[in-house]
């Protein structure tokens, strides 16, 4: 492999002969790129499992409720645990964190390599469990259904555990790197917001990753032996509490780095410093802290004591303030910028819309009486879809288009990228807003796609999926296609000020010829 790439014209770390080639490399940039390939695989799998129920409800498939239930189960498991949570830290985090900090590599290169291997093993095991028949008990895997339901669960459990341990390694790596590998003069409050958000989210990657891995293994054990913490004699709320304790923060530690990406993108495309930098850092800390104590909003209507439901409501509604501060800061940063008309710009606007919708849907779900009504409906499904497909994927694509010249040394075709972004924006809303309407009408959570929707809504949603898939094909095809462009992107095509733009595109193996000195993050 390394022989072939040695002849490639791309240059930098992409062509250099480095120890380990690609598959045993410890270079953060190569690992970041490989993570990009694997997470794109997870995204495509998620897309496939998301489209199946659509095809069925339009009558294009024979009536196979079991198959649809399995598709819905895997769609969520793969997207949440193998795309939503790891995509930004694993891909953009691996690639950009050392560059933004002026470091040669992540602090723990062995962790980098093994986080990738565990991630890949997790995805392969999950896929193997699909091929072995799959399970159909829903992505929250509630006991006692998950103890008795058909299917080969241990393969899936092993896959999810690998994923969880992979998050753990990614998280530890990020934390140690931020503490020990910042360039001289680069204090904590001089880090770009992407680095900040990765650093803050990493604490929850560590926590949630470990808890998820361990509880899933316990669950598989209980299923195998008929005893244990989550065994048939246990209170079924016990599993749900553990599960949501591990999973509730996922939405936040995915959205916070997503916001970090968007801040750096906006500062770059607008050639402007972030307004209210410290306020944003504080709001990110507040949001992540709240995410650890609000898992119970997912259990309203599940027999949770009413006073607990109320406390969880209050705690999660507190999140409205940090979200508003972040939104203010983002808009204020756009204000009076010199904003490039580019693909990341369109994805940024899509992010603001989608993350905004997801955030206000959170208000509905946290409102005491409304939450009890909406929490077991498709409204809750749609909120997670808006977070994943809308917020996190939107920011991820914005970041990928923004840093693509740095990653590959090749320029992005912006008109095509913007066209992809428009298709994506239309697709997300056509595909998922009908779910909001159906949810308010009372369609059940997670498995609502099994039921025929109100007239016309299913067709609209199917059209939305078509737009969404086309948009992704255009965007990803455009990025990959740029590799064949002969012209070079230049070291700093955006005129941005963070440290990653001070080195060559693509960066050399050691990132910087001379160790840079840290200054104000956005070069004011």
């Amino acid at each position, binding site marked *: 492999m390394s022989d072939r790439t040695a002849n490639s014209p791309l240059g930098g770390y992409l062509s250099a002969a480095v120890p380990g080639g690609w598959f045993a490399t410890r270079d953060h940039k190569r690992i970041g790129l490989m993570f990009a390939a694997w997470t794109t695989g997870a995204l495509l799998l998620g897309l496939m499992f998301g489209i199946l129920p659509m095809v069925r409800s339009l009558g294009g498939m024979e009536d196979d409720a079991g198959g649809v239930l399995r598709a819905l189960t895997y769609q969520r498991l793969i997207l949440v645990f193998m795309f939503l949570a790891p995509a930004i830290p694993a891909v953009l985090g691996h690639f950009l964190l050392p560059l933004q900090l002026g470091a040669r590599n992540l602090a723990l290169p062995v962790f980098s390599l093994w986080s990738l291997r565990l991630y890949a093993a997790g995805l392969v095991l999950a896929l193997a469990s699909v091929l072995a028949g799959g399970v159909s008990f829903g992505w929250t895997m*509630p006991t006692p259904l998950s103890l008795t339901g058909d299917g080969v669960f241990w393969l899936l459990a092993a896959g999810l555990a690998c994923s969880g341990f992979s998050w753990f390694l990614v998280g530890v790596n990020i934390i140690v790197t931020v503490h020990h590998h910042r360039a001289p003069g680069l204090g904590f409050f001089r880090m770009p917001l992407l680095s900040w958000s990765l650093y803050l989210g990493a604490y929850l990657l560590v926590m949630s990753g470990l808890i998820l891995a361990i509880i899933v293994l316990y669950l598989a054990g209980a299923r195998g032996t008929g005893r244990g913490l989550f065994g048939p004699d246990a209170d079924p709320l016990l599993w749900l509490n553990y599960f949501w304790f591990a999973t509730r923060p996922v939405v936040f530690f995915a959205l916070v780095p997503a916001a970090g990406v968007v801040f750096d993108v906006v500062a770059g495309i607008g050639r402007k410093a972030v307004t209210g930098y410290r306020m944003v850092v504080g709001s990110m800390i507040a949001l992540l802290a709240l995410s650890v104590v609000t898992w119970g909003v997912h259990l309203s209507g599940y027999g949770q004591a009413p006073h607990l439901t109320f406390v969880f409501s209050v705690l999660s509604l507190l999140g409205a303030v940090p979200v508003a501060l972040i939104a203010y800061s983002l808009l204020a940063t756009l204000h009076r910028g010199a904003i490039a008309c580019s693909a990341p710009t369109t994805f940024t606007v899509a992010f603001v819309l989608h993350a905004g919708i997801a955030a206000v849907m959170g208000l509905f779900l946290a409102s005491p*009486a409304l939450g009890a009504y909406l929490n077991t409906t498709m409204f809750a499904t749609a909120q997670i879809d808006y977070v994943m497909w809308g917020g996190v994927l939107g920011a991820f694509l914005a970041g990928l288009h923004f840093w693509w010249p740095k990653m590959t040394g090749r320029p992005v075709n912006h008109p095509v990228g913007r066209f992809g972004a428009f298709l994506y924006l239309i697709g997300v809303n056509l595909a998922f807003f009908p779910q909001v309407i159906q949810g308010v009408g009372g369609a*059940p959570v997670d498995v609502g796609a099994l039921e025929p929707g109100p007239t016309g809504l299913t067709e609209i949603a199917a059209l939305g999926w078509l737009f969404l898939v086309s948009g992704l094909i255009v965007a990803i095809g455009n990025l990959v296609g740029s590799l064949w462009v002969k012209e070079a992107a230049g070291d700093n095509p955006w005129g941005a000020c963070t440290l990653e733009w001070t080195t060559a595109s693509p960066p050399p193996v050691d990132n910087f010829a001379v160790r840079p000195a840290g200054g104000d993050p956005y070069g004011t």
Partner: protein
Amino acid sequence: MATWLPAAASRQAEGVDGPFQGLYVAAAFAVAFAAGLALAYVMLFRRRDESARGAPAGRPHPLYLGLWTLLAAGLAVYALVAGFPGFLDQTVPPYGAYPVGVTARNDGFDFTYPGGHVADTLHVAVGKPVQLTMTSEDVIHGLSVPAMRVHQAILPGRQATAWFEATLADTFDLRSNIHGGEGAALRTALVSHQPADFDEWLRRVSDIFTGRTLAEAGELLYNREGCKACHTTDGTRLVGPSFKDVYGFEFPTRDGKTVLVDDAYIKESILTPNVSVVAGYEPVMTPYEGKLGDKEIEAITAWLKTLSSKGGAAEEAEPEAEGDPAAGDGQEDK
């Protein structure tokens, strides 16, 4: 918007619908404003000159930031305060609500009425609060009636409660909103009647002889009155003798006599069971004197005949004619 919610049919629906409408308007405005501003800025401040740079770093404008934050906090406070009365209402059933027991299983719901009648659809009276006390026999299920704004999970090994007061007489969708695995079929109907119709319905379905042959009514009593705890129908011996091949046979009793199992002996064995007990069994059965009437005993006798090779021709009587076919769905006892 309002039309996305199903037409409200319960008194507590307003506790959900009110905050929903309010939040919907406020949230739609907030999202449209933020996304619209982002779009406007992107177009308004687009780079006109390749070498242009953005304005120098500024600080958040204290007045705008304060207003913005206050509005967001206000939205959150509204979500909490507006949702609170409905939450209290959902949580605390009114005193004296009509109690119905609910058992959820993968193959459906059982609704148990105070008189002991068990139906697979839920019938209620308009204007009368109904309190559901629910448990599950296998996995987590739920009870959801969107028109009543009732959504409640039902957990195995726990009791969940929910209540509502219907305001419209109609038939509504009732189902589980929680995935119970492949093959789970928890979907039925909620029928709300005018109070007089409800009483009439309950009186009619509680009469176990309506729509059943005598023998079928007997089998229902066997299941419902607890006989099956001690007597099998397949010849297996439990605390008491099996009911297979008893009618028309002769048995020795504990005091050395011989009895022929006929209508009279069956009646005696139900009402005063410990007077002449078959040899080999203890006189431990609860007397049913005063609990079962002649017609019920007649029904049990007719059913025992069908279990016996000497029972003679099984009853061929047609089920009694039914008045209202719509009520037939509630007749099946389990």
